[in-house]
């Protein structure tokens, strides 16, 4: 029970609330706030759940980024709003700020080996996030016209 709380529930709650802070910083109002925060929390949940599939951290970040992109694209199309906002905020908990810091910490302490490995890991995570958004949006670009054709009349121009 405590395991569930501390390893799963709390981190996602932290991600949710931190995203709420970013919504204030980037001036988001209304129901958009809830979408961004839910996206951030679910994205982190996917990252945690991906541990069952693979222990490769970079692959877990990739899966989480793909999930967040799909989630925000779907939400943007439902609300007919630009996807940028939801995507940017929901991805922020995944951005490797810790990696930059860790690399710098080792650099200052003069540990070149650890510095380089932290640097490479950080760049790997950033690359995984980038690749994840690219893959997610490409999937949406292919899938959405097909979905629209199946439900003719219900969808509008997909200029999201």
């Amino acid at each position: 029970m405590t395991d569930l709380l501390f390893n799963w529930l709390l981190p996602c709650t932290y991600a949710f609330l931190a995203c709420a802070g970013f919504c204030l910083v980037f001036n988001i109002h209304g129901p958009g706030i809830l979408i961004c925060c839910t996206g951030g929390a679910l994205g982190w949940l996917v990252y945690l759940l991906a541990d069952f599939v693979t222990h490769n951290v970079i692959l877990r970040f990739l899966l989480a980024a793909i999930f967040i992109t799909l989630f925000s694209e779907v939400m943007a199309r439902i609300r007919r709003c630009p996807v940028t906002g939801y995507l940017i905020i929901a991805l922020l908990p995944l951005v490797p700020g810790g990696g930059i810091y860790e690399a710098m910490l080792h650099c200052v302490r003069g540990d070149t080996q650890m510095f380089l490995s932290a640097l490479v890991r950080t760049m790997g995570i950033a690359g995984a996030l980038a690749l994840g958004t690219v893959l997610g949006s490409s999937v949406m670009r292919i899938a959405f016209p097909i979905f629209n054709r199946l439900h003719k009349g219900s969808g509008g121009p997909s200029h999201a």
Partner: protein
Amino acid sequence: MDYNGLLNLGTELGCQLMASGAEISRVEDSIQRLMQAYGISNAHVFAIPNCLMVSLTPPTGEPITRICRIPAHGTDLDHLELCNALCRTLCQDTPPLEQALAQVSLVPDGRPIYSDRAIILGHFLVGAFFTPFFGGNLLDSLCGGLCGVSIALSTRLLRHIAGSSAFFRTLLSAAVSSLLAQLLVHFGNAGNADAITVGALMLLVPGVSLTTSMREFMAGDMVSGVTRLAESVLTATAIALGTGAALALGQFL
């Protein structure tokens, strides 16, 4: 039809979209759609992150062009949503040009903006909740929030002093917040300096420009993609340098 007015309408809307942090493809696409809605099919739009050019040839044959330089800007997602929605309605209803131009120029004033206090609260929330996210306890979380507020205040202050150099601003803010974290750990009883520092640094991390850069690449706007990618690498370097300086100073504590 007043083609100069149409050109102004398109450029004005495009400028606002750019200034709110929209992707290039969205800006170009919106202006193109707007022109088509008003019956101009030979409009050409080109944009890079700080410049927008719109050119069209009316049936009378004299081509007209407007260039607009976009000043340094942040990201304002509510503004972006409003401009996007307005562009949709304009394309659908095509109201008279004066009315449309009035609607576009009203957007920046009429939209809701969070007060300074709310924005500082936002910084506090980000710092306070990313700290436990990276393994801090309750007290650390409070300190993380304080460091977040220090970032908000120092970026604001530096905007007046250090001018428009975003690199230097990020560097100094990162240094201030990391130094504050170390002081709080040294003199206060907070335990985890790493978690506090990283939690507050998440405010400066270039997540926005990295994500946008990737979207630009995907849409085929290579110039803008490279520009934003360079921006995010520079920001990350600034954070690393600032934190490094603070860590080096902290060793003397």
